[in-house]
């Protein structure tokens, strides 16, 4: 580590493009490994499953969670399936082969998986979340986290977030449950939900991401440890933001969480996900599955600020983030919106997707992916249009620096029955320096004559027309570019709930002035 990375010599180097201001350089440097603030580890006694993976590991995890037989069978079926699969290699990422026998598939802080109250949660864990700025005490939340509100009335009401904190393989605390229950909202760890709401779990688990979907999703189905379960009953607007904070702490451990969110008819929920891990020299695997189900007229807004440890600037260590996220707009007029700010992980392989099944349903994907050092990100989305008049919108911004590679990979598929479907896709890439890569791999499949699909991608400046318009209003070229570019970035950032927008901005002060041209 230290400041010997590429960006160190960057400011005085000819590779700095004209127009990239010092603020950008400084901000990019701030993303360097030495500034990874979440890189500490917590010293706590941890209980592991035996290293490696075989059928007994799956049984061990299931037994730890005291699961019913049907779920154990479900896991075992996935495990058997996984044995027949091969790891995908089509993404534009390279990493050393993963030795699945050298990983702990389960790690939990000793002294119980779930704590009755926060007072029982080990001090080390509480301190960990405190250090990360994650409010686990409801009182603190009430006092501490006040977002800038849009209306005067909202400004008087402090904004609150309910948090499910997942530490390695277990959920350690879930806040505001009582208050949420009053509204009928179920917000708990998925291991609890298996016992308390087995019908919902049975009905929806694996219904969006099937067991055999892909290599990593199948692995997750076999060994998933914990995660969050959310159910919003019909017509309920969830009274507060829900959030899960994932923390990988133990060494040589994989994290395999499973999140399931169901918004029943006419319901609304905004869900936030954050993740960090200690700085370790070895690579760690994170293979999560997230399933969202939106029934008629429901809306789910899912936001992620992904800040896993990305490895140091030589490429040592870091998280392999191989995640399957998919939302199913099952009912008419439903809406699922993914917003992600990706700054972490050594290797990212992730495509939050929407299946637009219901007529008039809407899918959105807003993404900013920043790679630095030796990071590799292959990320994007899939919009599968099945229903009539379904609409989707994809806005993706990739920023590459250091020796990293950043790929947007997306699929827009219009089924033969998706009358009058519409999609708009825009992906822009910015390269900072000459040692990184920016790639765009869109797949567009259209089977409808009345569909309208537009895709734009560029590694260059803004639309001439927009520039012309702004300039003829009297702005100089620099100001015009700054205005338009900033406006565009805000378009993604403003999709984030306020609490996350602040975090994202502090992670991401890379301004886009002087975008590569």
């Amino acid at each position: 580590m230290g400041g010997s990375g590429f960006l160190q010599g960057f400011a005085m180097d000819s590779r700095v493009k004209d127009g990239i201001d010092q603020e950008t350089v400084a901000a990019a440097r701030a993303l360097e490994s030495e500034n990874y603030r979440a890189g500490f580890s917590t010293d706590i006694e941890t209980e592991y499953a035996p290293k490696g993976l075989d059928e007994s590991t799956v049984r061990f995890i299931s037994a730890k969670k005291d699961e019913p037989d049907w779920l154990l069978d479900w896991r075992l079926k996935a495990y058997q399936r996984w044995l027949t699969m091969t790891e995908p290699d089509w993404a534009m990422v390279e990493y050393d082969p993963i030795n699945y026998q050298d990983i702990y598939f389960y790690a939990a802080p000793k002294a119980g998986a779930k704590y009755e109250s926060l007072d029982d949660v080990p001090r080390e864990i509480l301190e960990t979340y405190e250090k990360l700025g994650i409010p686990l005490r409801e009182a603190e939340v009430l006092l501490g986290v006040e977002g800038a509100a849009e209306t005067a009335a909202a400004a008087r009401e402090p904004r609150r977030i309910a948090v499910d904190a997942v530490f390695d393989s277990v959920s350690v605390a879930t806040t505001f449950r009582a208050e949420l229950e009053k509204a009928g909202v179920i917000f708990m760890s998925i291991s609890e939900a298996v016992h308390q709401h087995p019908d919902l779990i049975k009905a929806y688990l694996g219904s969006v991401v099937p067991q055999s979907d892909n290599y990593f999703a199948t692995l997750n189905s076999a060994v998933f440890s914990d995660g969050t379960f959310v159910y919003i009953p019909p017509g309920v607007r969830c009274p507060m933001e829900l959030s899960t904070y994932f923390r990988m702490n133990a060494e040589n451990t994989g994290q395999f969480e499973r999140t399931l969110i169901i918004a029943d008819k006419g319901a609304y929920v905004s869900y936030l996900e954050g993740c960090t891990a200690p700085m370790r020299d070895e690579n760690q695997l994170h293979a999560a599955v997230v399933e969202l189900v939106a029934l008629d007229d429901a809306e789910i807004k899912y936001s992620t600020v992904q800040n896993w440890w990305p490895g140091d600037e030589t490429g040592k260590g870091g998280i392999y983030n191989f995640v399957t996220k998919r939302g199913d707009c099952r009912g008419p007029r439903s809406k699922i919106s993914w917003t992600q700010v990706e700054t972490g992980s050594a290797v990212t392989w992730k495509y939050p997707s929407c299946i637009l099944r219901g007529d008039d349903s809407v899918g959105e994907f807003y993404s900013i992916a920043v790679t630095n050092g030796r990071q590799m990100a292959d990320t994007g989305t899939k919009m599968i249009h099945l229903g009539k008049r379904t609409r989707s919108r994809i806005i993706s911004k990739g920023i590459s620096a250091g020796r990293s590679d950043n790929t947007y990979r997306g699929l827009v598929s219009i089924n033969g029955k998706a009358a009058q479907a519409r999609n708009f896709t825009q992906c822009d890439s910015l390269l900072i320096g000459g040692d990184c890569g920016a790639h765009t791999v869109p797949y567009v499949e259209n089977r409808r004559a009345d569909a309208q699909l537009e895709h734009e991608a560029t590694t260059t400046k803004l639309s001439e027309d927009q520039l012309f318009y702004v300039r003829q209003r009297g702005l100089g070229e620099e100001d015009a570019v700054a205005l338009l570019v900033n406006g565009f970035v805000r378009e993604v950032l403003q999709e984030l709930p306020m609490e996350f927008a602040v975090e994202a901005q502090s992670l991401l002060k890379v301004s886009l002035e002087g975008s590569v041209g």
Partner: protein
Amino acid sequence: MAPARGALSPTFPDASPAERALADRFMAGTVDGRRGRAFEAFARTGLPHRRLEGWRWTDFRAALATLAPVTATGHGQALPVADGAVTLRFSGEEIFLPDSLPDGLILHTKADAPALAGAEEAPMAALAAALAGRGTGPDTVILEVCGRVAEPVHIVCEGGGAEVNFARIAVIVRPGGALDLVESHLGGAGLSSVLIEIDVAASGQLRRTLSQRGDAHEAQAITALVHLDEGASYIQTALAFGARVARIETRLVHRGTGSAAVLNGVYLCAGGQHVDFTSHVRHGAPACTTRQVTKGAVLKGGRGVFQGKFLVPRDIGQHTDADMQHQALLLEQGAEVFAKPELEIYADDVECAHGNTSGALDPDMLFYLRQRGIPLTEARAMLTQAFIAEALAAAGGGTHEALSAAASRFLSGVSL
């Protein structure tokens, strides 16, 4: 012989009858090392199929269950080319070469196929290299362009109803040389695969214009491997009507500073017809430009595929200026358009952009024309013709009018 057969067996564990027939054809003649390597490269994948990333929408294996003769000897007329053009005709087992050549043009034939670089990347090209001229004619026809050749060269590929038609042609443009190359790919074989290797030396110019036709019983692959040296210019225009599967693939490398390429294409697919325009452009030298416009119009039961890729390597690709546009019209329900416009960029001081749209004709435009008294069918044909015109504008060898007319005939025959 054994090694080639050996190379075949592990990769053809469940060879289709067509693949077996191709292997038999290969084994029937003497096997030299270069042909062997080319066939090995083909055998690695066999007939390309949908499980290969670059062929997910164009499945030759599925389209070509067996190798069989076809009833059509060819489709339509060869393009009418400017006076004085010389014609090379490749028809199934026979090759017809011109008696006299214009100034500046030298024709060579080679009986031992030259090695094919990059064969692994293009299995259908490798197949052509392995099987072209098998026993009946020269393996490779080489056109050497030593000056500015005034008359176009016309290559006509017409199978005459045979099972297969393979051709391998090399065009070498010497420094400062210039040539108009016109190609008429008329089908008329169960499987046609034509490989064209083009090398344009410093300041040389090549304008390539091609038209492709086929029917629902035929599979066609036309692969061009293009290298451009410093300041060279290459302009390609293609009009394709498709076949059961038809792939027009261009793999181009900018090898010298400041070379320029234009890759334009139009596909018009009726029911049962499939066209795949695939291109791979490597900006392997600084300050090169690529302009690519592909337009398509597809009817019910037709499928248009566009796969484009710009690869800009680190350092040497600086100051690249590249633009890729693909726009398609689905003229009827039941049409399919699949696209993958791809950018892979490792240099920071470049301008690269791509755009991709697909949809129906603008109803406002249709309304405007109709309220001027133009019948709907004609209005649609006019708008579609205007939509594709840009991509045919750079056609050479006196073929522009013929290409526009061919497109127009297709569109006016469409009653929607």
